[in-house]
Structures are given as C-alpha cells and as structure tokens.
C-alpha cells in the first residue's frame, strides 16, 4: 500500500470514528467535545490503534481549528456587547477570575510542576465553555430567564480576559523573561483596546472590506483574512488565536452572521480534529495517576463556579432557584480549556502530566457541568421539601 493511500485511510477512519462519537453524544444529549477527546486517546500514542505519518497534517489542522474556534467566538459578539458586558459584570468577572484561576494554579504548584504550569492550569480551570453553555441554555429553554443575561455577560468577560491571557501565555511558553511578558501584556491590552475602538467606530468599514455577495469569494476572503491576521499576531507574540478573535469582533452585523453560517461547518471539522489530536498526543496510561487530583480539582472548581454565578445572580436581584441555575450553568469547561492546555503542550514547556490532567478535567467538567445544571432545579426543590418535613416532625 502506498504512503498516500495509507494516510487517506487513516484520516477517513478518524473522521468516521469522530462522526460516530458525535452521534453518540447527540443521542445521550451531551457535548461532543469530551467524546472527541476520548476518541483521540483511543487512537493515539499508547492507545488501541497507533496512527503514524499524520503528524504534520494533524499539527496544521489543529492549529487552524484553534484559529477558527476563536474567530467564530469573536464573530458571535459585537464590540458593543463586549463593552456593555465588561461594564456590567467587571466585578463579578474579577471574582470569577480569582476564584476559578486559583484552584488550578495552586494544584499545579502543589504538584511541583512549576510556575509556567500553574499559569496554564489556572487558565484551564478558569474559563467556562461558552459553546457548551450557550447550547445548554437554548436546549433547556432558559433564554427567557432573568439570570441568563448574567451568565452571558460573565462569559463575555471571560472571553475578553482570554484575549489578554493568551498573549501572556504565549510569551511565557516561548521562554521569554518576565520583562518581555509584562511588555506583551501592555501590547495586547493596547491591541485589544484599539480593535474594540476600531470595531465600535469603523466596524461597518471592516465588514464592507471582507463582505462579498459571492459565497465562494466570501468564504475565501474571511478564511484568508483570519489566517493572515493569526499569522501576523503570532509573529508579534500576541498569539494566533487572539488575532483571529479580534478579527471576529471587528466584523459585525449581517456580515458577521453570514460569516458564522459559512464558517460553522469548517470550524466543526477543524475543531473536532483539534480535540482528537489533543487526545491523540496524550498517552492514556498517564491519566490514571492524575485522575484523583483531577477529581479533586473538578469538585473544587464546581463549587467556586457555582459561588460566582450565585453571587452575580443575587447581585441582580434574582431569587434562589435562579441563582442555582446561574451557578450550575457556568460549571461546564470545554473547548477553551483544551485550547490553553494544547498551546502549553505544543510548546513543550510543561510536564506531560499536564495534558493528562487537562484531559481528565475537561472530560469530567464537559460531561457533568451540563448534567448538573439540568438537575439544579429538581435538587433544590427536593432540598426545600426535605427541610420542610423535619420541621413538621419536630413539632409533633
């Protein structure tokens, strides 16, 4: 069998398997991301089947996957929504950052993985999955709920925080000194502000430049622009993903809606590949030793996320059931935790155990987060009934 034929068959097998996993996820009503990770684990180094010869292809596809994930995230928001979200939820956002970054960072530190791994694991536990959460809110018919805007503006804050965090992470991973790191923070804050201002004032102009009535031309323009911007951003040490995110923000209105529609299938393809590749590069035998710690981390960060959502909802005058819904909705972690861990693992600057830890953690949070928020209301009702019964019993 020729080399090309072998590679085509390997790729085909991977895509078909991912499709089966996606179908399974749809059947049991969970996000496919955790299952893609499992799929990757299954195929990769130390897995059941060891694929070879795909490294170059998978490296590029997963890079593009990250760029598309962030581009579409940027397209979802208009600059106005971001600025409003920041204004409304900055305090809850900061609380979220402190409470949910610390557990990951502390655990990495305690395990002796060093400061870089602490920075990475903090990011992994901090960022909720806006993809999973938006889907769960829509599926559970919670778009009309009063706590929903609270949840969404927290997600907006997190996504903006990513735009500052990722460049810092990229510099640190590349082994630059603290001074260079601080400089990058300055540059990225400047760039983010600049892009927001441009998007607010001249968003229409940016949209007009990339817009086209011809679907094919439009697709090529948006994709090309995203990769170019990502490349330039990467050269400037601002992180390719953030470049794509900012381009997404700058494109607005109907152009953004069209771009989302046309790029969604591509994003799904490349992102699925990215998750699978992350699993592929993780040796399954490294997971059991860190599994216990991953469970501890999952429990702690479930509590901290619920606390943030609870507090933010209470602050907006929302009742107890709404606070429980808000808190539990935020628990799901997914795509961006893997993006962060993926960047770290690719740079080789962290322990390989970190990949195993991140995989186990996202598996837990991606699956149990949505389940938890589904159960929040019935559980609360049960609790209230239980607390009512003993009171009556004591009286007798």
């Amino acid at each position, binding site marked *: 069998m020729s080399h090309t034929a072998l590679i085509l068959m390997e790729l085909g097998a991977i895509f078909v398997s991912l499709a089966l996993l996606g179908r399974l996820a749809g059947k049991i009503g969970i996000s496919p991301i955790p299952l893609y990770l499992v799929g990757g684990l299954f195929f990769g180094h130390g897995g059941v089947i060891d694929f070879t010869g795909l490294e170059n292809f998978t490296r590029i596809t997963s890079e593009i996957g990250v760029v598309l994930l962030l581009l579409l995230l940027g397209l979802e928001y208009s600059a106005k*929504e971001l600025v*409003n979200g920041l204004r409304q939820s900055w305090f809850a956002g900061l609380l979220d950052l402190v409470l949910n970054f610390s557990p990951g960072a502390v655990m990495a530190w305690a395990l002796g993985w060093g400061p870089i791994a602490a920075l990475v694991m903090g990011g992994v536990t901090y960022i909720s999955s806006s993809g999973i959460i938006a889907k769960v809110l829509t599926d559970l018919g*919670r778009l009309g709920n009063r706590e929903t805007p609270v949840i969404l503006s927290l997600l907006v804050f997190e996504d903006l925080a990513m735009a500052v965090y990722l460049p810092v992470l990229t510099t640190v991973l590349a082994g630059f000194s603290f001074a260079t790191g601080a400089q990058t923070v300055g540059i990225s804050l400047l760039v983010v502000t600049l892009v927001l201002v441009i998007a607010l004032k001249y968003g229409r102009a940016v949209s007009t430049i990339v817009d086209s009535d011809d679907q094919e031309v439009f697709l090529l323009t948006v994709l090309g622009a995203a990769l170019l911007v990502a490349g330039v951003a990467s050269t400037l040490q601002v992180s390719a993903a953030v470049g794509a995110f900012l381009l997404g923000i700058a494109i607005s209105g109907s152009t953004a809606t069209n771009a989302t529609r046309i790029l969604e299938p591509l994003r799904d393809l490349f992102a699925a590949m990215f998750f699978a590749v992350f699993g592929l590069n993780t040796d399954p035998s490294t997971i059991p030793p860190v599994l216990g710690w991953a469970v501890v981390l999952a429990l702690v960060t479930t509590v901290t996320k619920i606390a943030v959502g609870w507090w933010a909802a209470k602050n907006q005058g929302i009742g107890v059931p709404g606070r429980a819904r808000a808190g539990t909705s935020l628990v799901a972690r997914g795509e961006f935790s893997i993006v962060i861990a993926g960047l770290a693992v690719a740079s080789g600057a962290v322990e390989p155990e970190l990949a195993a830890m991140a995989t186990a953690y996202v598996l837990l949070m991606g699956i149990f987060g949505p389940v938890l928020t589904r159960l929040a209301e019935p559980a609360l009702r049960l609790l209230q009934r239980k607390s009512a019964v003993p009171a009556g019993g004591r009286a007798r």
Partner: protein
Amino acid sequence: MNVDETPLPGIGVRKEITTASGRRIGIVTQRDGQTELIVSRQDDPDAAMASIPLTVDEAATLGNLLGAPRLVAQLTDEHRDLPGVNTRQFLIETDSRFDGLTLGDTEMRTKTGVSLVAIIRAGKVLPSPTPDFGLTGGDLLVAVGTSKGLDAAANIIQQG
C-alpha cells in the same frame, strides 16, 4: 407601555413587558432570526415557563390576534351613537377557500350588506381595502354592519 430590552450577547436580544398581574411576557429574537415567545413562571418569576419557537407566519398571526381587539373596541366606541351598527373581526384561516382570492371574491357587501373597513396583516392595520385586495391566510378582516349581516358574513368566512 414599558418594553424592557435585554441584550443576550452571542445569542440575540430579548424584549419583554411586565403585565399588571406581574408576569413577564415577551419574545427572544435569536441572531439567525428565529423568534421565541416567552412567558414567565408564576412560582419563580425569574424563570420562563414556556419558550415557544414561532415561525414568521405564526408570529404575524399572533400579532394580529392580539392587535385586533383594540381596533374593534375603538370602532365600536365610535359607532356607539349609531344604534344597530356593530363591529366584528373575522380570521382568514390558512386552509380557507379565500386564501389567495381577492376581497371582491367574498362578495361580502352584496350578500350581507356588511362593510369591511380594515384588514390587519402582520400586526399592521390596512384601512379601507379595495375589492381587488388579495387575501392570505392569517389576515384579520374588520367588518362593520348589523348583527344579522355580521352573522351572515361569519357564515361566508367559515364556509370558505
């Protein structure tokens, strides 16, 4: 009436009113244009009891149904000094014979003496329609006439 507009970043926008009975009712418009009707729950006012996806046609028809009584009330009020003159509304259903025909085809005036003074479509009032006005399903006809005439008109529309 105060309409609360809440942006839902990344999803769309929610517009709602709070009724005198304390319930929130409104719509969520998603970015892809999909509209959902939302009604808040009685026991938990923060939550939505129902969130019902509506097609463009369904939303327009619902708008007609809600908007028409107000117009009819107004007309009735104006006719109060004319004894024997009433106002009533008729819905053209989507499977009606008149869906696609013109107003003239109903021969309403000839057969019943009733005047059609307005048509409500997609929440808009179209006053004084001409006989060549094309009807479609979901239209609400506002008719003015005697009780007897209006009963006859109702029969024509229902048989349609």
